[in-house]
C-alpha cells in the first residue's frame, strides 16, 4: 500500500547573496572587536612571513651546509660504494606506496573551484613575498631596493593568481561541478619537483684557486636527481600497472597482500637490504633449520592436540608450557629457543579459543608455522654479521636512524601497550598490580633517564656474554617507555566500549579472550586512533633524545656534527640553517602521519552513527 504525496514541494528560497565581500564582512569585519582582531592578526602573519623570508634569503645564509651534507643528514656514514642499497630501500617504499594507492583506491577528486583556490593562494603568497621580502618594501623605506627579485616574485605570483582564477571560473557552468583527480594533481606536483631538481641550482661549497672557501650555485649532484627521477617513474608505472591489474584480482586478497608486504618491508629493508648479512650455510643447516623444523612440527602437533581437547587437559598443558617458557629465562640457552618457547606457550593458551575446526584450525596451525619461520629468520638475520663496513660506532645514522628507531619502537610498543592495558583492566589482581606498577613507574621517570638506564645499567643487568648494540638499546628504552603511554590510551578506548557490548558478546557464548579480540579491542583501538597517532608523532620526535647517549640521529647531525665541521669545508656556526632544515623535515613526516590518520578515521567511520 502506498500513499501518494499530492503536494508539490515548495521551492527552496534563493540563497542569500555571497561573494568575497559578503564573506569578509560576515567573517572578518562583523564587529569592532573582530575588525581589530583581523587587522592585528594580519599584521602579525605578515611580520612572521617577512621575517622568515628575510632569514632564508639573507645574504650570509650558508645553505651550502645543508646541500653539501645531505648524505650525512640522511644516512650518516653509510659507505658511498653501497649507496645502491639505500636507493633500493627507498624504491621498495615507493613501489609499495604506489601499489597501496592503487589497491585501496585512494584519491578521489577535488573540485576545480578548490584547486583554483589553492593555486590562487600560492600566487597571493608569492606576490606578498615579493612585497615584504628582504628585497621589497621593508628593505628600503624609500622604495624598492632589488627590482629584479621583486618583479620575479610578483610576476610568478600574478601568473599563478590568473591561472588559479581561470581554473576556478573558465566555463563557469561546468567549473562549479567539474572535478579534478587528486592523484593527477599529485603527479603534476611530483613532475614540478623533478623539473626543479634538474633546472634550479642550489648553493654548494667550493674553493677558489688560492684556497678560500666560497659558495657557488650548482645543479643538484647527479647522484640524487637521476635516482629520484627513475624512482618517481617507477612509482607512477607501478601505480598504473596495479590499477590495470586490480580488477582481475580479488580485492580482499590484494589488500591483505599489500598489508603483509608493508609489514615485511621494514625488516627486509633494515636487515637484508641495508645490512647485507653474511650468509653462513653451515650455521643455517646445523642450527636454524633444525630448530625451526622441530618447533614447527612438534609444536604444531602439540597445538593441534590442545585445540582438539574439549575438557581441561588442553588448558592445563598450556599452563605447563607457560611455566616452562618463563623458567627458560633462568636456564642458559640460546635466545631463539627462549623466544620460540614463549611463543609456543602463547599459542597454546589461545588454542582453545581460536583453534577452531577444519579450515580455522589449519589456519591457526599455519599461523604457528609462519611465526616460527619469521622469528627464526629475524633472529638469524640479526645475529649474522653485516658485510657492509660502516665507519661509525653504529650501523645507521641520520634520518635513517631516526626512522628505524621510530618504526621499531612504535611497532614493538603496540602489542606491549595492548597487553599492559588488558592487564590493567583485568579482573585478576596480580596482572592489574603488575601492569599498574609498570605504567606508573615508567611514566613517572623522564625518557632521557630511561635512555641512560638502557645504556649504562642494561649491560650490567644482562647475563654475561650477551651484548646488545647501541641502536637496540635505544629501541628497548623507547619501546618500554612508549608502551606505558600506549597502554593508557588503549585503556581509555576500552573504557569507551559500552557494557552492552560485553553483555551481548557473553550472551552469545564468546569467552573472555574471544570477546577481547573480536569485540572490545577493535572498538577500543578505533576509538583512540587520534590519541595513538598523536603519540606516534610524539615518539617520532622524541627519538631525537638518543643524542644524549651518543647516537648520531638526524637532529644530532644537524645540531652538532655539521655546525662543528671543518673538513673538507668549513661550516662552523651554520646551526641556524641546519636546524631550520631539520624542522622542515620533521614537520613533513609528522604532517603526513596526521593526514594519513585522518583518512584512516574517516575510513573506519563507515557504518558508524
Amino acid at each position: 500500500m502506498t500513499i501518494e504525496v499530492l503536494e508539490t514541494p515548495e521551492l527552496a528560497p534563493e540563497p542569500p547573496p555571497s561573494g568575497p565581500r559578503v564573506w569578509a564582512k560576515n567573517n572578518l569585519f562583523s564587529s569592532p572587536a573582530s575588525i581589530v582582531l583581523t587587522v592585528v592578526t594580519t599584521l602579525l602573519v605578515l611580520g612572521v612571513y617577512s621575517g622568515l623570508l628575510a632569514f632564508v634569503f639573507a645574504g650570509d645564509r650558508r645553505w651550502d651546509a645543508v646541500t653539501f651534507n645531505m648524505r650525512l643528514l640522511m644516512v650518516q656514514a653509510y659507505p658511498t660504494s653501497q649507496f645502491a642499497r639505500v636507493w633500493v630501500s627507498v624504491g621498495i617504499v615507493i613501489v609499495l606506496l604506489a601499489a597501496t594507492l592503487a589497491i585501496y583506491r585512494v584519491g578521489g577528486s577535488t573540485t576545480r573551484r578548490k584547486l583554483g583556490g589553492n593555486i590562487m593562494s600560492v600566487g597571493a603568497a608569492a606576490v606578498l613575498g615579493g612585497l615584504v621580502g628582504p628585497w621589497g618594501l621593508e628593505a628600503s623605506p624609500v622604495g624598492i631596493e632589488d627590482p629584479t627579485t621583486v618583479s620575479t616574485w610578483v610576476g610568478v605570483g600574478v601568473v599563478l593568481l590568473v591561472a588559479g582564477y581561470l581554473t576556478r571560473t573558465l566555463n563557469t557552468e561546468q567549473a562549479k561541478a567539474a572535478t579534478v583527480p587528486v592523484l593527477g594533481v599529485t603527479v603534476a606536483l611530483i613532475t614540478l619537483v623533478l623539473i626543479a631538481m634538474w633546472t634550479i641550482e642550489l648553493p654548494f661549497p667550493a674553493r677558489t684557486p688560492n684556497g678560500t672557501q666560497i659558495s657557488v650555485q650548482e645543479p643538484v649532484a647527479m647522484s640524487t636527481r637521476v635516482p629520484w627521477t627513475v624512482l618517481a617513474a617507477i612509482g607512477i608505472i607501478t601505480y598504473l600497472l596495479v590499477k590495470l591489474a586490480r580488477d582481475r584480482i580479488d580485492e580482499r586478497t590484494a589488500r591483505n597482500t599489500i598489508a603483509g608486504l608493508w609489514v615485511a618491508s621494514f625488516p627486509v629493508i633494515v636487515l637484508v637490504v641495508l645490512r647485507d648479512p653474511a650468509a653462513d650455510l653451515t650455521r643455517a643447516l646445523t642450527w636454524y633449520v633444525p630448530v625451526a623444523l622441530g618447533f614447527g612440527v612438534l609444536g604444531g602437533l602439540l597445538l593441534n592436540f590442545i585445540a582438539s581437547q574439549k575438557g581441561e587437559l588442553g588448558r592445563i598443558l598450556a599452563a605447563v608450557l607457560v611455566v616452562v617458557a618463563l623458567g627458560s629465562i633462568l636456564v642458559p640457552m640460546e635466545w631463539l629457543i627462549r623466544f620460540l618457547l614463549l611463543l609456543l606457550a602463547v599459542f597454546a593458551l589461545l588454542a582453545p579459543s581460536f583453534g577452531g575446526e577444519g579450515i580455522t584450525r589449519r589456519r591457526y596451525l599455519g599461523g604457528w608455522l609462519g611465526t616460527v619461520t619469521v622469528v627464526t629468520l629475524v633472529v638469524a638475520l640479526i645475529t649474522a654479521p653485516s658485510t657492509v663496513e660502516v665507519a661509525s660506532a653504529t650501523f645507521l645514522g641520520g634520518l635513517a636512524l631516526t626512522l628505524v628507531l621510530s618504526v621499531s619502537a612504535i611497532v614493538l610498543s603496540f602489542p606491549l601497550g595492548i597487553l599492559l592495558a588488558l592487564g590493567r583492566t583485568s579482573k585478576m589482581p596480580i596482572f592489574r598490580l603488575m601492569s599498574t606498577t609498570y605504567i606508573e613507574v615508567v611514566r613517572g621517570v623522564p625518557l632521557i633517564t630511561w635512555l641512560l638506564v638502557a645504556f649504562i645499567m642494561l649491560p650490567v643487568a644482562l647475563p654475561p656474554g650477551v651484548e646488545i648494540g647501541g641502536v637496540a638499546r635505544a629501541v628497548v628504552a623507547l619501546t618500554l617507555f612508549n608502551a606505558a603511554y600506549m597502554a593508557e590510551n588503549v585503556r581509555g578506548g576500552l573504557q569507551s566500549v559500552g557494557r552492552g557490548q560485553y553483555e551481548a558478546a557473553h550472551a552469545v557464548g564468546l569467552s573472555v579472550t574471544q570477546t577481547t579480540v573480536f569485540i572490545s579491542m577493535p572498538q577500543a583501538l578505533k576509538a583512540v586512533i587520534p590519541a595513538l597517532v598523536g603519540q606516534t608523532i610524539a615518539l617520532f620526535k622524541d627519538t631525537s633524545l638518543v643524542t644524549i647517549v651518543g647516537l648520531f640521529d638526524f637532529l644530532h647531525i644537524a645540531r652538532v656534527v655539521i655546525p662543528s665541521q671543518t673538513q673538507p669545508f668549513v661550516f662552523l656556526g651554520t646551526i641556524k640553517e641546519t636546524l631550520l632544515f631539520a624542522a622542515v623535515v620533521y614537520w613533513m613526516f609528522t604532517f603526513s602521519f596526521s593526514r594519513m590518520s585522518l583518512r584512516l578515521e574517516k575510513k573506519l567511520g563507515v557504518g558508524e552513527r
Partner: protein
Amino acid sequence: MTTGNEEQTETAGQPGHVLGEPMIITDDVKKWFGDFQALKGITTSVKEREVVVIIGPSGSGKSTFIRCLNRLEAHQEGSIFIDGTELTNDIKNVEKIRSEVGMVFQQFNLFPHLTVLDNITLAPQWVRKLPKDEAQEIGVQLLERVGIPEQAEKYPGQLSGGQQQRVAIARSLAMKPKIMLFDEPTSALDPEMIKEVLDVMKELALSGMTMIVVTHEMGFAREVADRVLFFDFGTIVEAGTPEHFFTNPQHDRTKLFLSQIL
C-alpha cells in the same frame, strides 16, 4: 509478515502447542544490589516450548531475573537449573549455558564494527566452531527468516531500529539456542517498527521455541503467551494464563497495574 501467520498466532498457547519437560527451574532465587534486594525469592519453572511473558512496573526485578538466567547477573541465593545444568560460578557451565540460551536486549547491542552477517556468524564460528562458509549459510538463512536478507553486508549503524533488533534476534538464533530471553525488545523502538519485531517473535513462538519475554506489549502477551508472570518488588505477585490474567486478575496490585496501562 503474512496475514496467515497472524491468524495462527490467535491459537498459540492452545491446541497444537504441546509443552514438554521443564527447561528452566528456579528455586527461591534471591539477588541484592548492595543493600537493595532486587529479587526476593523467585520460584518458577518454564517448560520446553512454553512462552512466558513477564510484565511489571520498572524496578520490579523482571529484567534482573532474566539476566540471572544466563548469568549476566549472578544470583546470591537459591538455585537455577537450565536444561538440567545448575548455574554456578563454574565458568565452564556458564559458557555452556550461554551458548544454549539466546538473549535479545532492549538496546540491541549489535557489534557496530562488524557487518550484519559477521555479527551473526561470529559466535557460530568461534563458539560452535563451525566452518566459515557453513556459518555464513546459516546467517543468510536467518536473515531471510527475519525478513532482511538484503542487509547482510551493511553495518548496524546503517539500519533502522527495527531492522537492528531483527538482526539481534538472528544473531541469537544462529547459536541454535534452546531458550530465548527477550529483555524489553521493543521498548527502544519507534511505534511503527514495533510490529516488525513482534511479528518475528510470534513466528519464533509458533515454531516451538522456549521463550521468556519481558515486555510492556500487552497485545503480544495476550496473543502469544502461555503464561503471564506479574512482577513487583522483586516477587512474582501473580501468575496465570493470559486469559485469566487480563480478564480476572486476583491481586489488587495487578488490578492497579492493569488499570493504569490498559
